[in-house]
């Protein structure tokens, strides 16, 4: 996404800080956030909930944040969720220079239907949902699309096989598996212990038992 296309959001500075005031803001449909980085002090702000979620759902990494009429380019550094994972309760923004390199987690989208999946018991195992990449702040890709149509049972796709846009390098280990076809095996039933069996005791209790 270019800096020009970066979505713009206006935020207000939070004057009263603390969990109570943050909770009140959330009730009003606002999301507390903080902006930091570039050797400037942190600024606690609130953003309109619907607007911010709408921006985040479009996988926007670079956001143009307007604080008190001044515009700053920021990236989403961290997000906090409620305990059920339904609502965003806090967002961390980091100030960036458009020319500087930043490390970001970018969504990975798998496209295509591998033929090998038609085999009995075959399933697609894709442990990574995101890839950590390094690139200029103004050219962070929204997502990385990976075609897995040619994926076979013999060869897994690793980070090294993923074609990244120009200027983008992967920070995740090159040998990390992104997608592979696995065949579900018969489950090996673990050694069953007898009813009423007890685990081995190590530590204080064990010493006491030995002493007796």
């Amino acid at each position, binding site marked *: 996404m270019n800096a020009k296309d970066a979505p713009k959001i206006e935020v207000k500075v939070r004057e009263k800080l603390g969990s109570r005031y943050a909770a009140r803001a959330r009730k009003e449909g606002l999301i507390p956030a903080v902006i930091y980085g570039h050797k400037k002090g942190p600024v606690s702000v609130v953003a309109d909930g619907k607007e911010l*979620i709408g921006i*985040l*759902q479009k*996988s926007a990494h670079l956001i143009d944040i307007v604080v008190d009429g001044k515009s700053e380019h920021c990236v989403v550094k961290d*997000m906090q*969720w409620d*305990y*059920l*994972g339904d609502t*965003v309760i806090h967002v961390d923004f980091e100030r960036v220079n458009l020319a500087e390199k930043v490390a970001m987690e970018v*969504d990975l989208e798998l496209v295509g239907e591998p033929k090998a999946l038609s085999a*009995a*018991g075959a*399933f*697609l*195992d*894709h*442990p990574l*949902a995101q890839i950590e990449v390094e690139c200029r702040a103004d050219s962070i890709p929204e997502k990385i699309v990976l075609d897995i149509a040619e994926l076979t049972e013999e060869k897994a796709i690793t980070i090294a096989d993923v074609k990244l846009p120009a200027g983008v390098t992967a920070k995740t280990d090159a040998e990390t598996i992104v997608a592979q076809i*696995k065949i*579900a095996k*018969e*489950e090996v039933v673990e050694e*069953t*212990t*007898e*009813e009423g*069996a*007890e*685990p*081995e*005791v*190590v*530590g*204080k*209790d064990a010493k006491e038992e030995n002493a007796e």
Partner: protein
Amino acid sequence: MPLMPKRVKFRKQQRGTMKGNATRGNYVAYGDYGLQVTEGGWLTARQIEAGRIAARQYVSREGKLFVRVFPDKPISKKPLETRMGKGKAEPEYWVACIKPGQVIYEITGVPRDLARSAFTRVAHKMPFRCRFVERRHV
């Protein structure tokens, strides 16, 4: 015999309290879909195993199932018709302490509908309310 630790430091534990909500293990991390608990309590090793078998049988040999909880707390119980006192009873079974929000099972490699109906069956075996969740995309 269902799950239990191989080694422990102490044979018996106090009952403890469970305050608050899950702050870890409360999102789908390994699979595509998960079963999330919305209430807290103890989940016994037998219940974990029953849920695992129910899910595995429903999806037959497809996909991969992850069990995100482990029963590491021993629960002791006095035998029937025993007078009170005479010390703490022997451990009877093992439980996992579950806080609201905990994802207890995850599955990958199966279609959404199949995962949903498999976890509905599992949810019936659980001692608390559960809900079907998917991997988070903001």
